């Protein structure tokens, strides 16, 4: 069988072997000891032609309920948002997606400039002085922020709100274990981080404090009060933030945050079962030389033309080896590019409008539920998510909703065992009034 990705002909092979001076390619593998040589065929499925495989994988994809065909009220960190068509058209330019990390600036100005623009947009949204070129995702970016705070303050305890995304909390625990950092979880009360517990736990040994804004339950944490608690402390103020919310809400930078992280999936990145998404990492000039990951800086060439390069690389693993600030090598360049295109399309006006519509539609949904006799937990200011109380199992309820062409909100019992009968509902700008009304009605009908 011949393969369309392998161009070598028998004639090529013969003449190359002659030129090397060996009989066969087997000779080139003779350094692999006989004992470890693999005999026989790898036990994987047989090769398939393009049309066959396309048909098979299309059927496999068809076995998944998707948010294009179903109306989704599921969020919890990953959202169904407007993705302008232009995003994928740019991402399909193979000069971008088939390139490696831009090590050769002369032939990588496109990627380098795109990242510089991304860094600028993130700095603008978060109200921070600098941003890196991106991280794997919001959760690992937050964990890197935690380890940076410990490294910088030379302290080994962090206070983490339990109202952050539960997966992020788990990732923080894993990273903290590697660095022997103690993680103290601060309980949530009425949907918000318990700030009196936070104040009690804060001490001389605290390296950092982690708050999510808006938090996992959609509630807008009072960052002003956290800033006040941290006023006389050396602990770093770390905020994880949905960057779409920052199109409308006061950015964490204005509350004295030292590090702001999050995920830009909300801008131009499809859910794709949880990854790849795109973490961002923004901080102050003071911490610029401690930032994990790649940074792109502006400079000029010999003739004074503006250009961009990877910079401050002395922080990084390929130079510093075991003394590096992090082991991260890649960034999510392509997803960061998607985000930049989406943010260029939304622009100054669009991001505000989109954030505003999320808030209005979520409030409409909440009101409809309340009028239909449902109870919505918490009375704090919120962004585009809220916690709905239902009778019985949310998972069973969601199965029924699926039959009606809808994907219900997250069953919070999957996250917190004491939150059985609670659904985390997300309402984005993609949901129409008619869809919201139908969702409320279907949920009501289940009880009727």
């Amino acid at each position: 069988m011949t393969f369309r990705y392998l161009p070598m002909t028998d004639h090529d092979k013969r003449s190359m072997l002659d030129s090397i001076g060996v009989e066969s390619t087997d000779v080139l593998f003779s350094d692999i000891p006989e004992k470890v040589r693999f005999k026989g065929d790898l036990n994987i499925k047989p090769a398939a032609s393009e049309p066959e495989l396309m048909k098979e994988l299309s059927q496999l994809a068809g076995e998944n309920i998707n948010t294009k065909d179903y109306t989704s009220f599921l969020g919890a960190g990953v959202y169904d948002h407007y993705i302008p068509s232009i995003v994928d058209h740019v991402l399909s330019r193979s000069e971008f997606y088939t390139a490696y990390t831009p090590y050769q600036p002369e032939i990588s100005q496109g990627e380098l400039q795109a990242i510089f623009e991304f860094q600028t947009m993130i700095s603008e949204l978060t109200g921070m002085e600098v941003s890196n070129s991106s991280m794997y995702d919001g959760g690992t970016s937050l964990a890197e922020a935690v380890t940076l705070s410990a490294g910088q303050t030379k302290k080994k305890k962090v206070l983490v709100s339990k109202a952050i995304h539960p997966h992020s909390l788990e990732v923080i625990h894993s990273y903290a274990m590697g660095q022997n950092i103690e993680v103290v979880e601060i309980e949530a009360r009425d949907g918000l981080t318990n700030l009196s517990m936070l104040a009690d736990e804060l001490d001389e040994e605290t390296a950092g404090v982690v708050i999510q804004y808006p938090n996992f339950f959609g509630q807008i944490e009072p960052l002003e009060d956290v800033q006040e608690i941290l006023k006389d402390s050396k602990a770093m103020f770390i905020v994880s933030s949905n960057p779409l919310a920052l199109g409308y809400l006061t950015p964490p930078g204005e509350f004295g945050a030292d590090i702001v992280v999050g995920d830009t999936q909300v801008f131009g990145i499809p859910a794709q079962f949880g990854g790849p998404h795109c973490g961002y990492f923004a901080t102050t000039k003071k911490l610029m030389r401690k930032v994990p990951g790649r940074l792109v800086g502006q400079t000029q060439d010999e003739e004074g033309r503006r250009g961009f390069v990877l910079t401050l690389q002395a922080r990084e693993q390929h130079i510093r080896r075991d003394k590096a600030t992090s082991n991260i090598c890649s960034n999510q360049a392509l997803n960061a590019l998607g985000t930049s295109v989406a943010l260029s399309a939304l622009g100054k006006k669009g991001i505000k409008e989109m954030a505003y519509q999320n808030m209005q539609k979520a409030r409409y949904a909440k009101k409809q539920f309340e009028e239909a006799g449902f109870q919505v937990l918490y009375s704090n200011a919120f962004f585009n998510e809220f916690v709905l109380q239902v009778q019985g199992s949310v998972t069973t309820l969601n199965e029924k909703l699926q039959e009606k062409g809808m994907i219900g909100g997250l069953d919070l019992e999957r996250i917190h065992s004491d939150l059985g009968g609670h659904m985390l509902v997300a309402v984005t700008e993609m949901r129409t009034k008619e869809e919201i009304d139908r969702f409320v009605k279907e949920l009501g009908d289940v009880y009727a």
Partner: protein
Amino acid sequence: MRNEDFPLIFEHSQEGRVGFSLPDLDVPEVDLNVEVPYVRNIDANLPEVSELQIMRHYTALSKRNHGVDSGFYPLGSCTMKYNPKMNEDVARMPGFSHIHPLQAPESVQGALGLMYDLQTSLEAITGMDQVTLQPAAGAHGEWTGLMMIRAYHEANGDYNRTKVIVPDSAHGTNPASATVAGFEAVTVKSNEKGLVDLEDLKRVVDENTAALMLTNPNTLGLFEEEILDMAEIIHEAGGKLYYDGANLNAILGYARPGDMGFDVVHLNLHKTFTGPHGGGGPGSGPVGVKSDLAPYLPKPIVTKVQERYVFDDNRPDSIGRVKPYFGNFGINVRAYTYIRTMGANGLKQVSEYAVLNANYMMRELEKDFDLPFSQHCKHEFVLSGKRQKKLGVRTLDMAKRLLDFGYHPPTIYFPLNVEEAMMVEPTETEAKETLDEFIGAMRQIHKEASDNPEIVQEAPHTTIVGRMDETTAARKPVLRYQK
């Protein structure tokens, strides 16, 4: 901005222009100011541009960028092979791209089935017992693997295994990952053949050894022939053997890390298995382990129960979660499509041709360039620019000169144990004509180095910008645009 400076998207911005289209709000409005305490008082300064302006901007940027589809990209250790277009189409199917990670597992059986099948395929390819798809990239996989090794030792009450041995030829990520996982990195030397020096290994190994991290073939493109002896030394001392899968493209179907004595393996699906590099990411870094380490795998793992796929979360000894959700699924879909396209026989041919191409180029290029290690190489080889350095031309200059010929240069100044190193990895997807053209360019550059060194020293001559002032960039960092 100078006239010839290429504009930033912000410099196209004019107040009042839009590039988006949202429906009018169709629900009754409420006054948010009453409820929301923190409303932004200064707008984020995002560009105001039309859709065509955006498209032209990014199209122009793409033309200022070199990818595999633009031309030959023999960047050693990065495996810059062709990224099949079919993979892109499959990953964009709504049933793969528009599914939510927290949907009921029953509603995404196709996705779980694909993950399960990819896990078992990678187990077969590497000879390991169980694979997790959770790590986001190679470095993330390294850290995950080392954390498992740490958990394994600690479960045995072995709290003093604090050292991870790394060869001097290793990529910087290895020692960095060791540090992040709470270990101390210890270096083992290479011998005159470019392989790990067994005597030095015996010297550095002791009761504090947690693991040896190894790339095989190593970063010089050479197969560690004494791998079984090394495995024995490490295992005798109670340590674990870690396989960095960066160079797996050399041995698919020829040898498996699991059969060489490795206990943990990470793979770079964006290298060997054609996930596009994306300009620096996203990657995907699955990790495979032998059964004694399986209890420590990150949770959850996809398993099969009576023909249905489920997430197994009940793993009390797990090191925990290393990433939200289940890994870079979109990249895993691409890798799976590739593996299914090639099959067992095709994957073996991949390595056969990757190795043939590298050896052919190496034998042609050693006529003009120093070759520090003369045995057959695997998928890549390392030249030294020592000879040209004597003529006043450095490896950096030759790399820049290659840009004038339309090539991305090889990896340079790595590995660190070769002076003026140039690390060349052609990959199997390049035709002989391409290799010959590149060899021709390298010969010409060698000739220029002796006849007309300035042309090399002052390169590049044809690129849209010249060499950049990196010193100023680092001394006075400008990391964002400000009006």
